[in-house]
């Protein structure tokens, strides 16, 4: 990350006066270095999100008609059933991230 030492304010830019932004930014909690501070939690968050995404991205997993579940061919059952799974995985990731941020 190459960052100039002092931000150069371009003319007419929408900027908050530096002094006024300070109270807000002072309260900022940096998760930079979260990986070193909470290695296990961070990896778990990553795995949860990866699973939520890969579950329907990898189409061969579910692009089949059988087994049918009730009247639903597997493809359609899987899409409906994976939604709550992905939502719960994302929800757990959200909870874990809040703990990391504290």
């Amino acid at each position: 990350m190459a960052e100039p030492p002092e931000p150069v304010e371009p003319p007419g830019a929408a900027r908050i006066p530096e002094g006024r932004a300070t109270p807000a930014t002072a309260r900022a909690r940096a998760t930079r270095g979260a990986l070193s501070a909470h290695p296990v939690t961070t990896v778990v968050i990553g795995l949860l999100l990866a699973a939520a995404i890969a579950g329907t991205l990898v189409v061969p997993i579910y692009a089949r008609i059988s087994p049918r579940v009730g009247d639903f061919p597997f493809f359609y059952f899987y899409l409906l059933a994976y939604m709550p799974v992905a939502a719960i995985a994302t929800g757990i990731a959200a909870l874990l991230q809040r703990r990391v941020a504290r």
Partner: protein
Amino acid sequence: MSHVNATTFTIVVALFIIVTGVGFAAARWRRAADMMHLDEWGLGGRGFGTFVTWFLLGGDLYTAYTFIAVPALVYGSGSIGFYAASYTIMAFPIAFIFLPRLWSVSRVHGYVTPADFVRGRYGSRGLALAAAVTGILATMPYVALQLVGIQAVLTVMGVGSGSSNTYVKDVPLFIAFVVLAVYTYVSGLRAPAAIAFVKDTLIYIFVIVAVFYIPTRLGGWGHIFGVAQAHFTSVNPATKKPFGTFTPASARLGSTQFDFASLALGSALALFIYPHAITGTLAARHRGAITRNMALLPAYAVLLCLIALFGYMAIADPVTVAAVKQSGNAQLAVPFLFQHMFPSWFAGVAFAGIAIGALVPAAIMSIGAANLFTRNIFKEFVKPDASPRLQTRVSQWASLVVKFGALAFAVELPHTFSINLQLLGGVWILQTLPMLVGGLFTRWFHRWALLPGWLAGMILGTVAAYKTATPATSHWASSSDTVFGFTLYIGITAVVLNLAIAVVLTVILRALKVTEGPDETRPAHYTAEPDTEAVLVAVAPTSVESS
């Protein structure tokens, strides 16, 4: 207006009047001391909690066009239409990765648009202009398509179809849009946020009822899937190929799996970089409202999957199939299905849900596009010292221009044109991914590398989409193209090229030590959860002075 069902029509009109009242009343909701500030008009005071944000983003992302076009694609081509279910599953975990960072940095610096962030991060007016123009270009046809959604409902209701004159035919559409334009002008983002409650309640009701009720009329889910499977595996005598696929086909059968996956991934990546989605995001009061919603919004994804299944229900209903065939427009499949299956009063509820479903995203999209124009074109290049009051005024007028431009678009041009442009819109907006999402995580990319990458992606994407052809249409036939023997979504191909150019040029520009430009953000800004009061004081001293 010969075949208009009075009950259906009355219910639609009554619900529309209720929604109009809510739209105007919304101006008083969470009223601030000074409403003439973009944070107020354009972002609803940046004060929506988890609950309102859920309705706002849900109402924003699942549009009337989605409700019409997704089942229409399923009706026409089968399983490929279910990419929409897959993409809404992926979209939220993907957005979880970058959206909270965008919220935080925007809150710290008072950014109103995604291009404001690009401007601040790279210190480049040119790059911000590229982001803003892409956003406006991608949003305009999307607004026009909301009208196509309303028109589908009106056509099936029989409203205006008695006249051959386009303008007489579209009078109800004009009225709906003028009303929408006026309350958006008055209430800003508060109007769609309030109306989203009504819209989503109607949609959840009619979808749940439809999912349980319609199969009982059609011989159960087993029969519906059976008819669909038989239809899509039978051979179309005209093309000598199957009508579609019942599940994404593997490589042996001419793979549609890559097409399915790349369409889903591309759409999921694009979803939360559309300006209207970012407008909804930045209106949230706290960071937790965004992260929590990434776990709560998939409730809408279930809804979308069920809506896609309406396409199969339509295939299983011979009356709907005959009506669609006669009209020659697959987009009418779902409205015809509802008209045939539901009692007329409930068809009215469903039609109103779809039509009102068009108004919420149309309002947010026009606000998002208007903010881009005001912040990144007008203020940047025309009047750098524009006061918050003037900026709000310009945005209000720009939102009117966007809406009436879209109206002219939808009425004057063939619908296929809007649909093609919307398809292109997705390809275009993806080209802002490297500068926007890339920029949220690293300042490694050089600003003068991102610009040529963006340009190359825009050109390749547009040309590739133009060149797609089928036996029936010579251009703009598809959103997918063949790359190295695989059918892939053009947006993905273009953004890969875009990234490759950005990486190579960044390495070269860094080796040459070309100046990188100022970066006004700091790493801590991306994870900040600033105190709302403190930031509002910092960003908009006038709006809270009296409180």
